[in-house]
């Protein structure tokens, strides 16, 4: 508490029990948010005889209502109290700051604007679990519909919405899957910090993201989205009111990632423990920082593309509408300038989690730390130069297909380094085959398949055939799900003892691991085959020639789904009844294992001093 009490000023300290901040929580946020949204909608809605103008007015009212919901919620939960008090010259007192950090408030603090990074980490974890659950349920519906040709299970309209909403839900979930829970809970402890650099912004990033979830869900009740998560124009401009929910979600989410990304970057730069020089920073921290630092420039283009889509839909500005001089290619560029870095924003933290795990379970130093850093940085650097490989077939500048093919395939080199680091650490080791370590093996296989199929897709002639087919879908699920999500699940198993004080149920963990990984291979082997046979993506129905491949896929999907249900059960059950965890169950050497559970409010009683990197394993050499 020493750091906080130093802020106590000479002014009389008000009793925080009377302060407004004690009265605000997610409930008041909900009320103010709904009031703001309903009032805004009713103010702006209007009628017009011209259906085009009526469409514009309706979109305006809906979009404004969604943004006002988000702002209202934040007002209601007290997100702006800090800046407001600063503006009127009555800054928050030390006692109030302690209150905001959730000190001694038990479970209630998870529903408040709480600045403690550990609370934010748990909030993100449940946010991720919710999003993965919703996205996964949609995936099960998609696969059920595709189990047999005919597509009678759901209508084409519902199917298209499912495809798009599954996509965007999973993309959002996967962007925060590692940097949210582990980046917030574990990372500050890993670098020996008392909290994040900007604790209030940390709370803001979570609650802003939270407000995006109901907006995204509202897309269902507004008729869904017909465009897929790529939201290509001009399809997005002729789409129904559900599209507004998609647009608002992306804009709100982009604000959240900008806030979170700047905060994590600033924390890592400024808050490291004494002695933690750059070559002693744990590799997960390096990966998470490179990932969020890549998101900071990437996401604004997505946000801009959505603002322009919104303007096209509300004022007929015609950025993307060819009828009034726009171009769909402009949208595709803005989208993919975000879209390709974004897959590495997802991939890098998941891989970095696994790299953190390997040395601990092999009991050897991380092989070629510099190789790992160069690998991550190389992937991040090249990823901003490859976006147009998504547009080989669009007709835009065929002359540039060659250069984009070169930059894309060059990513194999830093990706190779990532493999080298993992393999080099494994070699000569006798790994401890616990659940987190199994994730490393699953990653090696899945990323191998995902990476190699990526080379086919980056090749222009091969892409002539494969583009827009199920082959692409199988490829990116291998990388994003097979590699990044596997990494995040391994990270959950690894850090579960530190985040909950209990061990994750091992037996259930193993069962879920093998169900998920075996099901995954079955699922996407079927999908690769369907793609090779020539089945396009995002189709509600298909010709009978693809029936076998799709049936196999669906069987695999059910295995994966069952595996995740088992995992969810293991998490919930172990959280409440699991074996009490020792302080350092894995015998790891990084700082987060030096603090007890529950982790004290400021993490360390005395700020730690670091004298080496956390990979000093190894018996003495003869």
């Amino acid at each position, binding site marked *: 508490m020493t750091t906080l009490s130093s802020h106590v000023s000479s002014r009389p300290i008000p009793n925080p029990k009377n302060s407004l901040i004690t009265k605000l929580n997610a409930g008041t946020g909900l009320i103010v948010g709904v009031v703001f949204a309903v009032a805004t909608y009713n103010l702006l809605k209007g009628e017009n005889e011209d259906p085009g103008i009526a469409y514009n007015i309706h979109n305006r009212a809906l979009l404004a209502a969604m943004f006002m919901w988000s702002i209202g919620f934040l007002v209601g939960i007290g997100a702006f109290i800090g800046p407001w008090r600063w503006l009127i010259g009555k800054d928050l007192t030390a006692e109030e700051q302690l209150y905001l950090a959730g000190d001694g408030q038990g479970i209630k603090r998870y529903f408040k604007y709480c600045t403690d990074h550990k609370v934010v980490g748990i909030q993100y974890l449940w946010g991720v679990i919710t999003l993965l659950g919703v996205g996964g349920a949609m995936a099960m519906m998609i696969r059920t519909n595709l189990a047999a040709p005919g597509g009678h299970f759901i209508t*084409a*309209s519902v199917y*298209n919405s499912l*495809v798009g909403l599954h996509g965007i839900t999973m993309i959002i979930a996967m962007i925060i899957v590692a940097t949210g829970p582990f980046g917030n809970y574990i990372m500050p402890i890993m670098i020996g910090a008392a909290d994040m650099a900007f604790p209030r912004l940390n709370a803001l990033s979570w609650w802003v993201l939270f407000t995006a979830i109901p907006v995204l869900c509202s897309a269902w009740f507004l008729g869904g989205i*017909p465009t*897929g998560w*790529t939201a*290509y124009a*001009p*399809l997005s401009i*002729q789409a129904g009111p559900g599209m507004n929910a998609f647009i608002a979600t992306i804009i709100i989410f982009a604000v959240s990632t900008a806030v979170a990304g700047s905060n994590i970057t600033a924390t890592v730069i400024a808050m490291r423990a004494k002695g933690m020089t750059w070559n002693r920073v744990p590799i997960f921290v390096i990966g998470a920082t490179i990932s969020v630092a890549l998101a900071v420039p990437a996401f604004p283009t997505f946000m801009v593309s959505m603002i322009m889509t919104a303007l096209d839909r509300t004022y007929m500005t015609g950025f993307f509408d060819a009828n009034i001089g*726009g171009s769909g290619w402009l949208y595709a560029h803005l989208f993919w300038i975000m879209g390709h870095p974004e897959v590495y924003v997802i991939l890098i933290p998941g891989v970095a989690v696994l790299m953190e795990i390997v040395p601990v*379970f092999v*009991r*050897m130093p991380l*092989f070629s730390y510099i*190789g790992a850093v160069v690998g991550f940085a190389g992937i991040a650097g090249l990823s901003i130069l490859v976006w147009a490989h998504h547009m080989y*077939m*669009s*007709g835009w500048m065929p002359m540039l*297909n*060659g250069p984009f093919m070169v930059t894309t*395939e*060059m990513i*194999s*080199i830093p990706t190779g*380094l990532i493999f*080298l680091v993992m*393999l*080099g650490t494994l*070699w*000569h*080791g006798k*790994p*401890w085959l616990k659940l987190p*370590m199994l994730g490393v*093996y699953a990653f090696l*296989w899945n990323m*191998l398949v995902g990476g190699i199929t990526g*080379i*086919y897709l980056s*090749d*222009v*002639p*091969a892409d*002539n*055939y494969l*583009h*827009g087919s199920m082959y692409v879908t199988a490829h990116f699920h291998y990388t994003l799900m097979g590699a990044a999500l596997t990494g995040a699940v391994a990270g959950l198993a690894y850090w579960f003892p530190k985040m909950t004080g209990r061990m994750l149920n091992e037996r259930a963990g193993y069962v879920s691991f093998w169900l998920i990984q075996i099901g995954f291979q079955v699922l996407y082997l079927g999908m690769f*085959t369907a793609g*090779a046979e*020539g089945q*396009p*993506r*995002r*189709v509600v*129905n298909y010709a009978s020639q693809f029936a076998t491949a799709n049936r196999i896929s669906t069987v695999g999907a059910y295995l994966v789904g069952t595996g995740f249900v088992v995992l969810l059960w293991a998490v919930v059950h172990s959280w409440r009844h699991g074996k009490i965890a020792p302080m350092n169950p894995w015998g790891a050497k990084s700082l987060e294992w030096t603090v007890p559970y529950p982790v004290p409010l400021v993490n360390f009683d005395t700020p730690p001093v670091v004298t080496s990197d956390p990979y000093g*394993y*190894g*018996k003495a050499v003869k």
Partner: protein
Amino acid sequence: MSEHNVDLKPTPGDRFTTFLKRKDIRETLAWAAFYTAGFVVLGGVFYTKWMPTSLSTDMKSIERLMVIFTWISAPVCGLVLSIATYTFRHGTRGDVPPEDGPPIRTNFLGVASFGAMAGILTLTAVVYGLIEMNSASEAAAKDAPSALIVEVTGSQWVWSFNYPAQGVSSNELMLPKGQPVIFKIHSVDVNHSFWPVQLGIKADANHFQTTSVTTTPNKLGRLDVKCAELCGLYHAYMETEGAVVEPADFNNWVTQNGGHSA
């Protein structure tokens, strides 16, 4: 493990022989051979078995490229999976962390040779792809004067084909064998993607610009035309059929549909 005889000062040749005699190296190499062979077979079988009958040289070269790329990557798969399998087999279970291994931080030769291998393989893939692209565009330029022009129009959710020189419009895609064809593609509404599957070509149909793509059908057979870009409600049903037929049959088809043979 790395317990070499340091006292004997072995020559590089001796060291290599000793290296190959190590048990861990032998087992890993055996796994590497197994996985490499597995991927070579898989590459040879999977794509040739599952990809549809090729009706053009473009499609044939894509099929070949998929097989060759799999073969090029087979040794990489062998390396990664052999090390993974070896260490997995020699892993430990139980509740106590195992003993520490040797404190290897890096290995210059290992990193350098791995980096060089990755670079060479990438370069091979890049060069191979560029050569294929170049030969396709050269062939297209050479064939242009004698080509049959087909105007392809995508609309929600129908493909239609217009043969301007023949004065024929149709919803099925008929092509004469052996004659180069230039597709001029555009959309009247949202983005579509024109995909005559067995021809191994694809191009988006945009509202604001016409795109074109060239190929030469060289075999008789059925054609499936699909849309490869999500275009709204009935995207899945935006497909039609066609065929590559003998030139004489094509001319018959043209006259039957009210056109004139060019």
